[in-house]
């Protein structure tokens, strides 16, 4: 399964934009678990995933060649 990862803000400091090729990630819940294993710093952060440019509100199936964005909240002004 090929997934393109795009990250923003503070998250981009430790997860660079990258293409991954992994097996066993069928849905966004599994992807979240994979991410937090790979990047433990995420566990203590608020962030939202977007699958193919749509915000993930519930567990969603991931298809091959999906793009997943990882977005933290910003408050600066």
């Amino acid at each position, binding site marked *: 399964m090929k997934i393109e990862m795009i990250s923003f*803000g503070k998250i981009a400091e430790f997860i660079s934009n990258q293409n991954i090729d992994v097996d066993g990630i069928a849905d966004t819940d599994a992807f979240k678990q994979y991410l937090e294993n790979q990047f*433990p710093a995420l566990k*203590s952060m*608020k962030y939202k995933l977007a699958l193919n440019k749509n*915000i993930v509100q519930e567990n969603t199936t991931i298809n091959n060649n999906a793009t997943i964005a990882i*977005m*933290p909240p910003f408050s600066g002004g």
Partner: protein
Amino acid sequence: MSAERYNRQIILKGFGEEAQQLLLRAKVLVIGAGGLGCPALQYLAAAGIGHIGIVDDDAIALSNLHRQILFTTADIGKLKVEVAAKRLQEMNTQIGIIRHPIRLQKNNILDIISRYDYILDGTDNFESRYLINDACALLNKPLIFAAVSGFEGQLAIFNTPDHLMPSTNYRDLFPIPPDKGEIPNCAENGVIGVLPGILGTMAAAETIKLIARIGQPLTNKILSYNLLTQEQYTIGISRGEGYTLPKTVDEFLNMNYQDTNEKPQSYIEIDANELVKLQQLESVILIDVRERHEVPVLDKQIFTQVPMSEFGAFMTKEFYQKHVVLICQHGIRSVAAAEAMQEKYGDAKKIYSLKGGIVKWRDHFLRS
């Protein structure tokens, strides 16, 4: 109305006299006259928004001037609202500027935003952002949201339904505020002046598009902007579930906006794979808290030895690393060390403890 003043936009195909009238009849509240608010206010005033309210209780400081471009060196110490209102009024004498030199709170925000049609959030902290979001959702006010972090920005329009979807709000993206220190603000993290300039100007553009009913405003979308690459990434927002959004004035007044940060962030327990990942970070220190006689002996080039018996003394010294990984034989003493460090450093450092210790991950340590 002086048609001459707005001539260049009235003659624009797709804008015209009708759109200009819509701007003149609109009432827009800009919250925060800072890096985002200044450029937004300038363009809204110049474009002929009929009534513009400005909320800010702050005075101008020297460190504001690199990005808050309504203010001059001579204005330092004066109230932002006063200086901004005066300057905008000089620029456009045909519009009404209303000063609100206050800090918005639960007990005054509903009264103020109920007097306006559109709310532009240019504040600089999560407390205000959640307060404003909830108040706008309660009163059904379109909210134009702009925020920056580092070299990036976010822009969105909330509480505005479009032809595809009912309205969404900030809590559909981030249901609860981050812990204090999780996301640094501009004062801690720094900001390049032109970034809020761009985002504030984009927020003004979205406000004008909404009012004049032109183009495709960012309703139910969030745009991420990167100054360093000039890339934009737009994500569709749908309604989330299971979060608290006050539905009545009573519920709103009972919400807690101030103390969202009371729970200290705690340390994180990790496994050996996560340890390997953390080792690759730039600013990391790996600390072995076992006593000096314990085996197996780890590579002292990689693992700094600070036995628990010396840990108190170590904590009195400063060290620069941001990430601290604590390791012991079974992952019990390292938890105690993590708790002590968490208490001392709070959000200033990220603390990790290897769960199960060296015994559990023996293969990993023998290999390396």
